[in-house]
């Protein structure tokens, strides 16, 4: 064994084995272009295979395969799908069809100019419903509110599912069965709840993303559409000097000081108080339309899910409703864009999309698909009001770093409205100062 050549062989073998291992691990790509001439489509989904949305999509993918002869390779990637897509873009392994929420697709693919223009899909006739095009059945307001994120393509996404943010309540409650339409009515109902020894507003202190809906909506009602974006993107911080900002902060402060927010909210972890709300321990819960599905297990007996649009603070105030869109996008580098677009139109068919409502209990992007029973109210709110994006669609970076840390102090009752406005202004300036 001590012969030099033996060691040389072993060493060479080891190096070879290592390099083979690298080659094998680093360079595997799933071939996106089969050579047999058959059409194919690779779809990476935001859902995992066991979710009801996956089952709905699977049914349509199978019938699409049968109807068109296009072979579909679907991979149930889950919520981190876009991180895989962006990695794939570097190595050339790109799916033809991807889905996610607008605020995930936008920064990942629209901002980087990696999303294909889907305008042509809008004018495509829907298979099985040839009298309609996609644009006929999916409201244009959903496309209008999509932010471009600085990218060149405007129509980079076609939604198939919608969530919106409204105030949920138990219609069968005895304290205040009538839904308020104005801020003052809401406060009056809150007083009734407190008098009845129950919480008015359910909130979890650590769920800043949900608690900030209150301030975001108040800014919208007090200052109009786009005001929140101005607040966040004004590098000088001057937008914070507007008296309506202070008023909004004072309205939050009033909820805190009058004890309208459920006791213990400042020391609870989401979804603790969400479940408390479902158990009738609080009257109202401002949340996305996934709330009924998430709380169903914890709901008190006879709980009748209702919802109302965020109340207005003045007669001519905006009544826009926070809407979150989930839909398909096609990477610009995808090999089979036409097939991907074909499937988007195919899934826009009423029968196929209705599974989103009947099986997955979400709102479908088509208003003519009946909403699940628990979401009847939110579907009406969505249909009757203007649509806006939560926080006017500003980047989550400025929210996480520039907005949330100071807003937490206000919502958790650690600073007054005046102190808050001062601190929030300073934080916005500091954020943009660091950005350079």
């Amino acid at each position, binding site marked *: 064994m*001590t012969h030099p050549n033996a060691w040389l062989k072993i060493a060479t073998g080891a190096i070879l084995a290592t390099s083979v291992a690298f080659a094998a691990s680093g360079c595997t790509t799933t071939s996106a272009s089969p050579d047999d001439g058959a059409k194919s489509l690779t779809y990476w989904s935001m859902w995992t295979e066991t979710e009801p949305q996956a089952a709905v999509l699977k049914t349509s993918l199978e019938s699409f395969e049968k109807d068109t002869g296009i072979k579909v390779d679907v991979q149930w990637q889950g919520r981190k799908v876009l991180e895989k897509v962006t990695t794939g873009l570097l190595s050339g392994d790109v799916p033809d069809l991807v889905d996610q929420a607008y605020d995930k697709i936008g*920064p990942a693919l629209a901002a980087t100019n990696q999303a294909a223009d889907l305008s042509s899909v809008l004018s495509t006739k829907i298979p099985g419903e040839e009298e309609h095009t996609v644009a006929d059945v999916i409201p244009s307001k959903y496309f209008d509110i999509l932010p471009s994120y600085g990218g060149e393509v405007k129509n980079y996404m076609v939604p198939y599912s919608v969530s919106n943010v409204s105030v949920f309540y138990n219609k069968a409650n005895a304290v205040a069965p009538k839904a308020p339409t104005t801020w003052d009515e809401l406060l009056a109902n809150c007083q009734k709840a407190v008098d009845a020894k129950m919480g008015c507003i359910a909130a979890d202190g*650590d769920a*800043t993303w949900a608690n900030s809906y209150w301030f975001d909506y108040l800014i919208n009602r007090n200052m109009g559409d786009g005001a929140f974006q101005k607040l966040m993107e004004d590098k000088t911080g001057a937008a914070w000097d507007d008296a309506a900002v202070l008023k909004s902060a004072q309205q939050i402060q009033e909820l805190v000081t009058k004890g309208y927010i459920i006791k*213990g909210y400042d020391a609870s972890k989401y979804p*603790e108080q969400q479940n408390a709300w479902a158990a009738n321990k609080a009257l109202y819960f401002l949340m996305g339309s996934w709330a009924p599905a998430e709380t169903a297990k914890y709901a008190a007996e006879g709980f009748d899910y209702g919802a109302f649009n965020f109340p207005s603070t003045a007669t001519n105030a905006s009544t826009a409703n926070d809407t979150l869109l989930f839909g398909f996008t096609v990477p610009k580098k995808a090999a089979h864009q036409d097939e991907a677009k074909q499937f988007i139109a195919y899934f826009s068919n009423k029968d196929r999309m209705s599974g989103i409502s009947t099986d997955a209990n979400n709102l479908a992007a088509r208003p003519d698909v009946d909403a699940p029973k628990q979401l009847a109210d939110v579907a009406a709110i969505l249909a009757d009001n203007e649509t806006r994006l939560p926080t006017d669609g500003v*980047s989550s970076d400025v929210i996480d770093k520039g907005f949330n840390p100071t807003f937490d102090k206000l919502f958790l009752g650690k600073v007054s409205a005046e102190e808050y406005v001062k601190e929030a202004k300073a934080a916005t300036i*500091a954020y943009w100062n*660091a950005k350079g």
Partner: protein
Amino acid sequence: MATPVISPARGRSTGRPRAGMSAIERSRRRLYWPMLLPALLLMVLFYIVPILYAGWLSLHTWDGINELKWRGADNYIQLAKDPIFIGSIVNTLKILFVVGIVTFVFAFALTMILRDMMGRKFVRSVLFFPTLINAMVFGIFAGFLFSPAGPINKLLAFVGVQDPPKWLAQDNLFNLIMIVMIWSATGYFTTIIMSAVDQIPAYYYEAAGLDGAGPWAKFRHVTLPLAWDVISVCAVLWTMSSVKVFELILVFGGSTAQAPPASTWSTALYVYQAAFGGGSREFGVSAAAAIVSLALVTVLTIGLRRMLRREAIEI
């Protein structure tokens, strides 16, 4: 940190094999590079190259997809101006020093107690147990245990505390994270230090006892010097792991896949958030933050090694 077990030729680093060298010595010499090379290759490929690449990336703007744009030192300037990044460094240092010191004090105390204890092997296993549990479990379990209507508060109410502390309030979040870290790290380091202490022959303690040494004197004059090498390795291990603390904070502070409050971010979390967290996808800033933390851990490790350097004592 690993050093090759087989030295090239005991004290001689270069030179051709000498005529007087034994056959074993010669074969050892021939073995050196072939044995070292695969590890070295992996090390270079998976550590050195990515570090150099991160350094290069930190001088650019990059969205993760399109072309890199030169930005020079601006990413570092941005970090220096960013109060959130400064806060994340302070948090990392808090983890390193506060959690580190408390953990080691506990580990020493436990070592002293366990040394003469009956059934110490069992106790040691129990102490080691928290290390095996995933941080996720703590995050979820703490939310249940410390919630306003949770078991801890119910217990407190039972003994008459009507106004319990706000355990999960944001101000306490980072403290709670630190407590969990202490809890899970103490067992780990106690186990390592204990194994070093076990090697110390009992007669040193007996002799010290005869000289009238109490538990503290025994610890100071017998345990500490004789276990010093292991302790200094533990200190370095802790330094490196504390700078990498990530998932515990993410799980504790982040509900439903949102970013945890910025007041709890460590540098590792900042690195992640800059690249993947927000909508900005700032890979350049992320790389710069990673390089700053690497510099931090390097300086601290070297400093610590120098501070803890002692003459090795042979048992």
